């Protein structure tokens, strides 16, 4: 039977049963911030936390999608079910997006143990869409053993994937830069495992040693020591080894490190949600009363400045809360 696609209870039940249509609809509801989105997330949240979430990031053309196809196949051989959320950029000009990650994952589309969702950033910065984290949660709640989150082809500062994934893979390819690039901050700091893909190409060993040299310079000696794996998504070389290293990292997290990581993520998320809700509630009221426009005009005419205006708004909000 096709589940009702507007009924929260039915969708929640459908997701937990792993029904693909329910999963698909639920992700859309969250992505579009439809009115019952929050209710669905609240219902699914207790069912999450079982999947191992793998984040895959790296520059455009490094071979992320192709590598994911190979990883998923190998995971399936080992009896694991997999969900994939693949993010591609939204055009800042038209608001549209061309989502092409499925092209590299064609062989997976008919596997009942695999669900793949393409997602546009909708201009959210950081390499992921605003809804990516919750989409990963939906897949987790649907019973997938492993959830893979692929970022947009990322530059140096798209590092949001650390907030979503338990294990972060930074995928690189030979010829992208020298050891100076490898020392830079951002992307090169977030990898638990670095992958030098396209090992079938020239210079793969040079790229390996550049990354290795960078990792050896690390001054932080505690905890997980990031490492490099050489793969070729084309020939399959190194895929099995990469999965072993991912498994090592998963085991390492289980020793307690994951709690530290989770705590930080939860704190960040709570702050984010709170900020958003406070801002919204204040702005809703202001707009309803038509005061928003007056206030922006005052700032425009230099009668006040944005910081003082914000202080006043906050003071006013506190008074209203006290009255209640």
């Amino acid at each position, binding site marked *: 039977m096709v589940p009702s696609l507007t009924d929260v209870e039915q969708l929640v039940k459908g997701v937990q049963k792993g029904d693909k249509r329910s999963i*698909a609809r639920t992700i859309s509801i969250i992505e579009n911030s439809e009115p019952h989105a929050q209710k669905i997330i609240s219902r699914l949240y207790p069912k999450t936390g079982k999947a191992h979430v793998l984040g895959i990031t790296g520059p455009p053309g490094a071979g992320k999608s192709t590598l994911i196809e190979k990883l998923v196949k190998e995971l399936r051989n080992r009896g694991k079910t997999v969900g994939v959320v693949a993010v591609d950029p939204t*055009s800042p000009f038209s608001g549209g*997006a*061309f989502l092409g990650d*499925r092209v590299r994952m064609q062989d997976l589309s*008919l596997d009942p143990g695999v669900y793949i969702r393409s997602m546009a950033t909708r201009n959210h910065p950081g390499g992921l869409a605003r809804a990516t984290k919750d989409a990963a949660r939906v897949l987790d709640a649907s019973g997938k053993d492993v959830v893979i989150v692929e970022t947009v082809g990322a530059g140096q500062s798209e590092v949001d994937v650390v907030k979503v994934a338990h294990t972060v893979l930074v995928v690189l390819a030979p010829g992208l830069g020298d050891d100076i690039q490898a020392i830079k901050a951002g992307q090169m700091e977030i990898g638990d495992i670095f992958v030098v893909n396209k090992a079938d190409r020239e210079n793969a060993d040079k790229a390996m040693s550049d990354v290795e040299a960078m990792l050896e310079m690390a001054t932080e000696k505690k905890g997980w020591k990031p490492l490099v794996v050489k793969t070729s998504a084309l020939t399959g070389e190194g895929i099995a080894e990469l999965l072993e290293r991912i498994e090592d990292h998963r085991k390492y997290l289980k020793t307690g490190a994951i709690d530290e990581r989770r705590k930080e993520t939860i704190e960040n998320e709570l702050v984010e949600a709170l900020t958003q809700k406070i801002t*919204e509630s204040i702005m809703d009221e202001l707009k309803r009363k038509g005061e928003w426009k007056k206030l922006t005009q005052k700032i425009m005419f230099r009668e006040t400045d944005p910081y003082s205006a914000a202080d006043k708004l906050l003071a006013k909000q506190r008074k209203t809360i006290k009255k209640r």
Partner: protein
Amino acid sequence: MSKKEKESKIRVVIAKPGLDSHDRGAKIVARALRDAGMEVIYTGLRQTPEQIVETALQEDVDVIGLSILSGAHMTLFPRTMELLKKKGLNDVLVFAGGIIPQEDIPALKKIGIREVFGPGTPTSTLVEFVKKNSPKRK
């Protein structure tokens, strides 16, 4: 969950059923729809009807565009439409393009393909068509 960011986009899958490998047309259509603000999922070449329908389902699309130049449309299109129905994706808008003889078009419309676009169709016609006919969902 921000109320301010509430936004819904038309999601389209552009698929190449069958064995021909001419995808320039499909890519031009995908690009035009992207530039019109839609989210376009491209499947790549040589898709079976099963793969296309499964993709449409997982991606929760509103629209499917089928591009074919091999001449196998009278086999692959009915199969695709049948599977869509079977999966409960009745409200998805389906259109087709490529090399499709005029005399085949009535039969294709009868099985639920809303429109067939031939070579030389301006992309603006296509964009208008999709915007006008895409199912309105809550």
